[in-house]
């Protein structure tokens, strides 16, 4: 296969990943690494480099649309980014120390978990019992609903902060956005409304990923000729996906995409265990 064909096939596959990621709400980043390693036999370090870049692109590209909806909370996001960026720095450092097979196994487990969490029921209960720490940190807000605005205050701030550290570390170790873990931290632990959690998570993904990008760059994980078609494809796919989202029938697609992710997760674990 020559360079041009390789780039074209990579770009088209990445476009598909970005499109499915946006339509299913799982994000395209999570399948880039298995796609590159399993299908294209790319070394996992180059794969996580290309994936991390794509994650920054999709998160930034979608931000303007999310702001318009009026659910994201910049204070909650900024405060929790302290945890995710510190986690990401540690995670990125770990990629240079942990054996490739271990990264593969952790990646497989995260894929299985992402598929499971995307199909789980959403948590919609809003408790307004004020958490003193959350009030001091102004981790509160109002969101638009069909019957006027509704106020919310974060609960269990230390637990949410700790989970965000984990989300950051996974992001840095695996080159993914860790959107699923970020949403768990806000929605499940801090009891923030689901829409606030998902849109704020999108904002946080870019900043978190930027914190591991420096080390990836200087460790040579970003191969320009490989990253180029992947990043452009994922970005185009996710922008297209968010335009189509309004009309698409999401439920079936979500199940199909989750099954693909489960298959990739199992494949990555099996391959990594064999490699030990």
């Amino acid at each position, binding site marked *: 296969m020559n360079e041009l064909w390789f780039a074209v096939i990579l770009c088209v596959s990445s476009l598909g990943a970005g499109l499915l990621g946006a339509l299913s709400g799982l994000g395209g980043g999570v399948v880039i690494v298995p796609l590159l390693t399993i299908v294209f036999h790319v070394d996992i370090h180059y794969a996580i480099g290309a994936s991390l870049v794509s994650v920054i692109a999709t998160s930034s590209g979608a931000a303007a649309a999310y702001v318009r909806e009026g659910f994201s909370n910049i204070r909650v996001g900024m405060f929790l980014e302290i945890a995710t960026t510190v986690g*990401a720095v540690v995670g990125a450092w770990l990629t240079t120390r942990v054996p490739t097979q271990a990264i593969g196994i952790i990646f497989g487990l995260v894929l299985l978990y992402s598929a499971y969490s995307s199909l789980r029921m959403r948590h919609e209960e809003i408790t307004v019992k004020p958490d003193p720490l959350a009030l001091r940190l102004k981790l509160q807000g109002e969101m638009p609903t069909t019957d006027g605005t509704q106020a919310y205050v974060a609960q269990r701030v230390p637990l949410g902060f700790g989970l965000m550290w984990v989300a950051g570390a996974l992001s840095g170790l695996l080159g993914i956005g860790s959107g699923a873990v970020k949403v768990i931290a806000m929605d499940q632990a801090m009891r923030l409304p689901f829409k606030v959690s998902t849109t704020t998570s999108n904002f946080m993904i870019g900043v978190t990923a930027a914190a591991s990008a420096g080390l990836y760059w200087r460790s040579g994980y970003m191969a320009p000729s490989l990253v180029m078609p992947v990043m452009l494809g994922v970005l185009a796919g996710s922008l297209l996906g968010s335009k189509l989202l309004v009309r698409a029938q999401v439920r079936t697609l979500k199940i199909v995409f989750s099954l693909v992710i489960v298959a990739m997760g199992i494949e990555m674990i099996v391959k990594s265990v064999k490699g030990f």
Partner: protein
Amino acid sequence: MTWNDKRIETLVGVMLRTGVLLAAAVVLTGGVLYLAQNRGPRPDYEHFHGEPARLMSLSAIGHGVMTGDARSIIMLGLLLLIATPVARVGMCIVGFLMERDKLYVAVSSVVMAILVYSLFFH
């Protein structure tokens, strides 16, 4: 117009979109140039061997861009992309300053410090 969270978020949203489109345009330019110059077999990505030193520092990349090196141009686009969320944090610092929210000026500055550390010193 007064400064409030909604205004900060709107500015940030526009800035992120502009940054990512600019970065994508630079990456695309470098990519077209790269594919026009390289017609060989697919490079070896199956084994990890890092990237050459000329793609590892800002000054080397700058020099590469000046001489029309395709990989350096792609790398410049990638660095612009990485800089976009960093600029977002910078814009939030300014926004919180305008809102006179000292606590969040401090919180954003801590995030900025971690980013700068990770990008240049880690």
